[in-house]
């Protein structure tokens, strides 16, 4: 049967469907085909019928009562029926062997197990990362049908997913997927190919060194950059790394610098140093910071030292001075994670010349960098120089906000408690809660800084005993204060009176000590004024009261009174310290707590129920409350 002719007719019919059957009358292309059908129709009846169908389409008047559309449909139904019997199944050309990459994995999971993660891998939108991660953790990827979606997910636009696949999911298949990856890897490609290369390097180890070298040498920019970083720890590629570090492309040079930074050979150090002094001085900074070669540190220190020595000569030339400072900052950035005797000596000299660098040049970062270098050291000499600098800072920063912030923290570390008090109490004199002038804001900042040092606030795990055993580890907001013993040694006792005067309930709570009646009265009054457990006040006030050495009975009565206060509503969660105090109440207070229970909701309600249960003894189930 003439399949080509049928196919041609099919195309013509399709054309008429698209163009509209009304245009079919006298269609010359169909007309041209007609004789062949008529000729073949003499032998095969099906061609005769097709021929009649064609005639009906091109001569609308020949078949009575039927429209052009109907004729076209009739022809199409007949033609497609014939075509369906003519489907070709054989391939064109010779057959080749299949190239396989055998993977030993079962097809063990059911549709319902796999479909969720497969959908997550091939669709877009939120919430997919968790599904994929969970599926990986439960081992769903150990199925033959998951490899292909996993490989495809390397190009997921959501980077976290692509990286999860690259760093965990694909490496978990082991070297058996290496041939597939190598087969798919295209060195000329983009970011997706760099991810493939990463997996290849992880799985292939030494066996793929050549491939990675080739990629580093002749791949696309992204691929080269990744390949160079993968070659970093391989000593034998130093010559190539040196060559790539002079590449025309910035990205390649950057990768090469970072790779060279992992080595401490003279050549590598020379090259990095050369780049730092050349036009790549910015680009090479991360690599320089990473490089641990002592030789490099030594050279940098020498150069920085030379530069600083030129300072007196150029003092008058603002342009030169500014140029020099830009260069000095670059050296400081590079040196900030390094350590060497030469560097110590350099910084020591810098701090010795505080008046020059600070007062005259205002090179604050230089002094700060030197300061922080010595802070890491634990020696008498370091402490001495830090104290000396601090004294100078106290003068230099007198009217700067730094004075009540960083400088205060240094003072707290290096000066005696009395000296700190005397130095700083003046600042508090100008405290006015609602004022925004400079003196008042300095005072406010000082109070904040002291609070930062003394009171720690954080979210941490807490054993929520009121929950069922499985749910007991909870994250909760916690407040912790410096222990009273530490406070007594590290702080001047006069601070407490100052804080009471300024109505600083939090600092009063922290600094409160036994035998200070004024503080106790202050805190009790504060708690009466602010009994609401929903606020953070009451919790801190209770902590403070405990520090005043108030009698247990009096403390517990104050707690109960606060709990019973009409204003104590809308509390959903009782803070840990208050909760612990409630737990210590005597069993006789149970009835008082039961009375107020309806005012508390959610977790607070569960906490109070637990307290009541505790009072009624372990055998009493919660239902009886």
């Amino acid at each position, binding site marked *: 049967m003439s399949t080509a002719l049928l*196919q041609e007719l*099919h195309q013509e019919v*399709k054309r*008429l*469907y*698209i*163009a*509209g*059957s*009304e*245009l079919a009358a006298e269609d010359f292309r169909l007309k041209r085909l007609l004789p062949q059908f008529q000729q073949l129709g003499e032998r095969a009846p099906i061609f005769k019928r097709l021929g009649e169908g064609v005639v009906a389409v091109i001569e609308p008047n020949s078949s009575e009562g039927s*429209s*052009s*559309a*109907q004729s*076209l*449909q*009739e022809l*199409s*139904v007949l033609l*497609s*029926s*014939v*075509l*369906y*019997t*003519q*489907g*070709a*199944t*054989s*391939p*064109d*050309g*010779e*057959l*080749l*062997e*299949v*190239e*396989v*990459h*055998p993977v030993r994995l079962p*097809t063990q999971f*059911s*549709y*319902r*197990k*796999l*479909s*969720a993660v497969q959908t997550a891998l091939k669709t877009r939108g939120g919430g997919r990362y968790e599904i994929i991660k969970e599926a990986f953790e439960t081992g769903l990827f150990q199925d*033959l*049908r998951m*490899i*292909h979606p996993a490989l495809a997910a390397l190009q997921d636009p959501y980077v976290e997913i692509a990286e999860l696949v690259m760093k965990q999911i694909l490496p978990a298949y082991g070297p058996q997927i290496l041939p*597939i990856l190598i087969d798919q890897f295209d060195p000329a490609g983009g970011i997706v190919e760099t991810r493939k290369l990463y997996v290849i390097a992880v799985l292939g180890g030494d066996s793929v060194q050549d491939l990675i070298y080739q990629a580093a040498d002749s791949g696309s920019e992204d691929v080269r950059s990744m390949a160079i970083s993968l070659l970093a720890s391989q000593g034998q590629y130093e010559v190539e790394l040196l060559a790539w570090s002079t590449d025309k492309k910035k990205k390649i040079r950057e990768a090469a610098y970072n790779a060279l930074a992992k080595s401490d050979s003279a050549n590598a150090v020379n090259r990095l140093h050369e780049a730092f002094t050349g036009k790549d001085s910015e680009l090479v900074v991360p690599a320089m910071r990473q490089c641990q070669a002592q030789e490099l540190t030594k050279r940098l220190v020498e150069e920085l030292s030379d530069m600083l020595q030129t300072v007196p000569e150029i003092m008058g030339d603002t342009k030169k001075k500014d140029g020099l400072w830009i260069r000095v900052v670059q050296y400081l950035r590079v040196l900030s994670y390094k350590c060497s005797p030469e560097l110590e000596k350099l910084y020591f000299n810098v701090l010795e010349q505080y008046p020059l660098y600070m007062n005259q040049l205002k090179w604050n970062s230089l002094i700060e960098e030197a300061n922080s270098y010595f802070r890491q050291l634990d020696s008498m000499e370091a402490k001495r120089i830090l104290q000396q600098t601090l004294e100078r800072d106290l003068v230099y920063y007198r009217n700067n906000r730094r004075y009540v912030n960083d400088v205060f923290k240094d003072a707290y570390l290096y000066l005696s408690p009395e000296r700190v008090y005397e130095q700083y109490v003046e600042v508090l004199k100008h405290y006015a809660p609602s004022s925004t002038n400079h003196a008042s804001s300095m005072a406010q900042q000082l109070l904040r800084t002291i609070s930062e040092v003394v009171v720690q606030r954080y979210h941490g795990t807490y054993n929520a005993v009121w929950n*069922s*055993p*499985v*749910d007991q580890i909870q994250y909760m907001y916690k407040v912790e204060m410096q222990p009273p013993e530490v406070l007594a040694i590290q702080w001047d006792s006069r601070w407490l009176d100052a804080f009471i005067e300024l109505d600083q309930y939090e600092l009063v709570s922290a600094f409160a000590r036994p035998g200070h009646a004024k503080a106790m009265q202050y805190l009790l009054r504060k708690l009466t004024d602010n009994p609401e457990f929903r606020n953070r006040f009451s919790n801190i006030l209770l902590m403070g009261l405990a520090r005043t050495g108030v009698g247990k009975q009096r403390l517990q009565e104050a707690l109960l009174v606060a709990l019973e206060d009409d204003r104590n509503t809308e509390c959903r969660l009782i803070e840990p310290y208050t909760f612990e105090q409630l737990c210590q109440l005597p069993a006789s207070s149970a009835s008082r707590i039961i009375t107020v229970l309806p005012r508390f909701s959610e977790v607070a309600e569960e906490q109070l129920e637990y307290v009541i249960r505790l009072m009624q003894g372990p055998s009493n189930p919660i239902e009886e409350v």
Partner: protein
Amino acid sequence: MIDITEVFIDTLAPNSAAIKNGQGLVKKRRFVQLNQSEDGVVLFGECGGSGSSNYYPSADFVVSDKPVMRCTCPSRQLPCKHVLGLLYAYVGKENFVSATIPEDLAVKREKMSKREERKSELAAEGATVKPKKVNKSALKKKIGAQLEGLAVLEKLTQSLIRAGLGTIDAKGVKDIQVHVKMMGNYYLTGAQIELRRLALLLSSSDNREKTYSLAIEQLTRIHAFIKKGRAHLTLKLEDPDMSLNHESTIEEWLGHAWQLTELKECGLMSSDVELIQLSFLSYDDAARQEYVDLGYWIEKSTGDIHRTLQYRPYKAAKYIHEEDSFTDVALIPSLYRYPGDRNRRVRFESMSTRPLTNQDVEWIVSKASYSFSESFKQIKNQLKNPLADKNPVMLLHVNKISKSQQDQFVITDESGQHLVLDQIVALEQNTLPLLQYFALEELSDTTMLLMFEHQLDTGRLKAQPLTLIKGMDMIRLLY
């Protein structure tokens, strides 16, 4: 003693989210009480929910493989997560305290057993189910409406073709959508689906050439459907019994939903059948507005490959059990076959299972066709019928798998006949890349379950593998 496994509970669950939620309840210790009746056949418990009062799920194993599951929660899912949680807790060896069954549950159980008794009494008395009386004048009216609907449909398609597919714009598509709604009024749900499929094709933004080809195929199918439907309905009007046609699929095309009793009356039920699932897939059929769970099964006595189809309408998808792939052998007391030719739709209401054995796999392999040309002939014969299933599925023995110059997989039978494998339009998922993960020896002398498709534009009959059987392993490439 109740003998259940986690896998069994999984199969009870309507979907995977319900499994997860049920297990979550156990993990989070939301069960306040876990009880077992004194005779051991009922599990019941109390579970905390989001509301103020707790829920009381229960599972009654009086019929051991068909538990009756109840819960006081308002969820429409059956079983709900609370019942599933109760069962997972039982499998997870949680402590179930022996207790008497709560009163309201006992009342429900009694009512049910009375119902069962009455049923079995009726069966014992031999009371035959009264044949449903057909209201003939109503049916006549309905057929009249259907014929009218076909005329409307014909008018629409012809006007589309006269003007040409190239001229159909958004407004044209909207007009088709209006007709889709109209078809419902004419009791032509089958036509409704096919017309919606046409509208979807014409509004898709895919490759124009390809969608035109598919749209034209769809139009010819609708034309054939109108012709056959009209002939069938006219005949039916003349038939004094107005009986259903159980030999062709035309009733289904017209929108008839076969009832199991009707199928039984037509002699389309067989008893005690073993089915083995060969492949499974689930897809979203936008034209039906339903999710479809499709399973291909081989019938043990005949070697015929059937399919199970479960439709889950979008609106109710959450409450309908989502089928899963199935690897055991299903022992089915009564299997109902739908009218059709190859890969008939089948349905069953209950089954028991037994594990798949090596003998079963050997038997499946022996049922594969060894001659491609013979199989192609059968397939082409089916395809030429415009209303036939365009994606027949067959089991073929493959001598060798190779690659063509165009980098396509090609399978060859013993006599050297070839078939090019390719991804087919009907399947969303491409299984072909999986073939490269097999060892070479696994790719020769194997058995493949293939889904076929004829592509009119290229004039090629292509196939995509669904499952590969090598040795005793049945490797599901889809699910």
